[in-house]
């Protein structure tokens, strides 16, 4: 078994198992904690509707906060959009997902992906610099923040090396790329990258409580 | 199966290697004129799509001079419409192509008579002069014969 076979065979499989088990563990470990009923008289119905409202609306910045958060918000959005495009619109990735889930969708030309990828790496670096220099970020950051950054940027970096090669064999680079994704999958449920799903749970919780009150969300 | 239609060459979608080679030839001609430096392009080392080689050959065209060489199979040495640009095609005794080259030179080396052959030929001619006058033997013996 060579490195590529190991990467896309057992390594990826184990990573997916850990990802699934870890994610359920993390989410259910939260959802199955005690819940207290709310006896207050609702102003509006909160529930699922309220949850969905905030899940959607918190994706946008309130005008009151725009000027003070323009830079980090722009970085944040750009990073997420960049990751989204490179992950889901690079054709070999689409082929990968098709192999896993049987779904197919149109992709973008490689040069567009390379461009977006390089921009995304640059943004990732800007995000890191901000975390390491901004007084607030410096204070509140911990190992999870830095490691999650590393684990997120690694597949991007290993992916972008592939067209350049640096004299390294394609299959080796592909294997390293897949291994970096495996690392991401393994880490995701155990660090802050779990916000992939907690963003919905947290926003939904707030939505169902505050929409019920008619309070600002 | 009857409604399968031939598809016209799809390679108008990609420029392939034809254009880059033509550019390369222009630079090679410059080098030939300025520095007297010849260039050989081995077409076997380049990846060609279907029909591309024919396109290249067509673009270069047929010039004033075409030579045929018979040695270990047939070879064609042809000047293209662009003087100094030669199209060489070597075949083996089975008529399979064994090499295709574009040479940018005043005359390809293979056209030149080689010293070894000249020497051998000269020796042969000398031998034939030292022999009895023609007419004593049959015509076949008079043919130049490689040793």
């Amino acid at each position, binding site marked *: 078994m060579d490195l590529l076979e190991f990467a896309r065979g057992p390594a990826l499989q184990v990573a997916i198992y850990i990802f699934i088990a870890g994610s359920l563990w993390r989410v259910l470990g939260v959802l199955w904690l005690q819940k207290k009923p709310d006896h207050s008289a609702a102003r509006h119905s909160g529930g699922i509707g309220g949850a969905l409202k905030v899940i959607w609306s918190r994706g946008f910045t309130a005008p009151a906060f725009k000027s003070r958060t323009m830079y980090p918000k722009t970085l944040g959005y750009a990073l997420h959009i960049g990751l989204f495009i490179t992950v889901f619109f690079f*054709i*070999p990735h689409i082929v990968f997902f098709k192999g896993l889930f049987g779904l197919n969708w149109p992709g973008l*030309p490689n040069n567009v992906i390379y461009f977006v990828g390089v921009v995304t790496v640059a943004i990732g670096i800007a995000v890191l610099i901000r975390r390491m220099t901004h007084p607030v970020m410096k204070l509140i950051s911990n190992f999870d923040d830095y490691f999650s950054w590393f684990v997120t940027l690694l597949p991007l970096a290993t992916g972008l090396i592939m067209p350049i090669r640096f004299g390294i064999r394609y299959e080796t680079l*592909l294997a390293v790329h897949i291994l970096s994704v495996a690392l991401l999958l393994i880490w995701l449920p155990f660090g802050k990258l779990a916000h992939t799903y907690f963003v919905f749970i947290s926003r939904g919780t707030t939505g169902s409580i505050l929409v019920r009150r008619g309070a600002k969300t | 199966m009857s409604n399968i239609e031939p598809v016209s060459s799809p390679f108008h979608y990609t420029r392939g290697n034809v254009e880059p080679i033509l550019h390369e030839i222009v630079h090679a001609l410059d080098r030939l004129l300025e520095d007297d430096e010849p260039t050989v392009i*081995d077409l076997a080392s380049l*990846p*060609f799509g279907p029909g591309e080689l024919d396109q290249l050959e067509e673009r270069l065209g047929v010039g004033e001079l075409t030579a045929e060489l018979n*040695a270990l199979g047939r070879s064609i040495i042809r000047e293209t419409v662009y003087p100094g640009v030669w199209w060489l095609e070597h075949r083996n005794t089975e008529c399979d192509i064994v090499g295709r080259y574009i040479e940018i030179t005043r005359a390809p080396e293979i056209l030149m008579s080689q010293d070894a052959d000249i020497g051998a030929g000269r020796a042969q001619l000398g031998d034939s002069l030292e022999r009895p006058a023609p007419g004593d033997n049959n015509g076949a013996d008079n043919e130049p014969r490689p040793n």
Partner: protein
Amino acid sequence: MKDIPTLGDILQARGVSRRGFLKYCSATASLLALPPAMVPQIANALEQARRPSVIWLSFQECTGCTESLTRSSSPTLEGLIFDTISLDYHHTLQAAAGEAAEAARHAAMEENNGNYLVLVDGSIPLGNPGFSTIAGMSNYDMLMETVEGAAAVVAIGSCAAFGGIPGANPNPTGAVSVRDLVKDKPVINVPGCPPIPMVITGVLAQYLTFGQLPELDRHGRPMAFFGQTIHDRCYRRPFYEQGKFAETFDDEGARLGWCLFKLGCKGPITYNACATMKWNSGTSFPIEAGHPCLGCSEPGFWDKGGFYNAVSTGEIGSGTALAGAAAAGVAIGAAAAAMSRARQKKTIKEG
């Protein structure tokens, strides 16, 4: 050795002119992917070269490699056998049979002790010596006996180089490659199923020309022929970069000759010369015929997932395993929540 004529002598004896020789040399340069500027050096070397004795052993194989070899055009098989090498033993090609054939092998080994080349096609079964025998001798014994006095061994085809199809899962005969067995001699792998004919002859020509073993990659393959991937040299590469792919074998993309990546082309991870040397006297190669590369010159190509699965696909694992992982997650999550609740109760009580 002194009675072995040089290649120059042979060609001269056959009445080949200097021009013919130069043509032969440029074809050789082309074959070895050497720049045309090296033709004089090659000419010089070839003039002095003496053709080596070659013993060709065929084990668990399909004769496809020999078939391929017979399609070589530069040099032709005849040219190869008569001019370039002295092929002293080859089941399929030799006239001798039975004990005479084995005697020829032994004679060649004795006469050229330490200098002959052994070419092997087919893998060697280790499971049971009886799985494949020649003249009552197991493949293993014959290989080991023959390589004893060899200068080098060339493993022709993916079976000899990597175990190939006989070695594919579940490998019923316990097939192994030449390299698995021959440790004390240089082994050059010329994989492919079959290898490109010109690559087989090219390796021999290179040995003949320079009298030394070529530079090899990590799988023991000559860099001259296996230095680049099919993908890197593929004329369809621009379509890959533009994101134009054939989705099926009969769609518009397939007709327009778009990239076959999605149809499982192993070009990106396959090192071979198909895209430039091509097959059938330089006519075309599989991708040009509209079929993805199978990656036949790579180790274990038969077991690397389906031929039509794209290189970038991964394995998600079985449904059972996924369900198991999910169940484990649910169980741990429930346990964690229960544990936290119990702990909460305890802390509240203690407080």
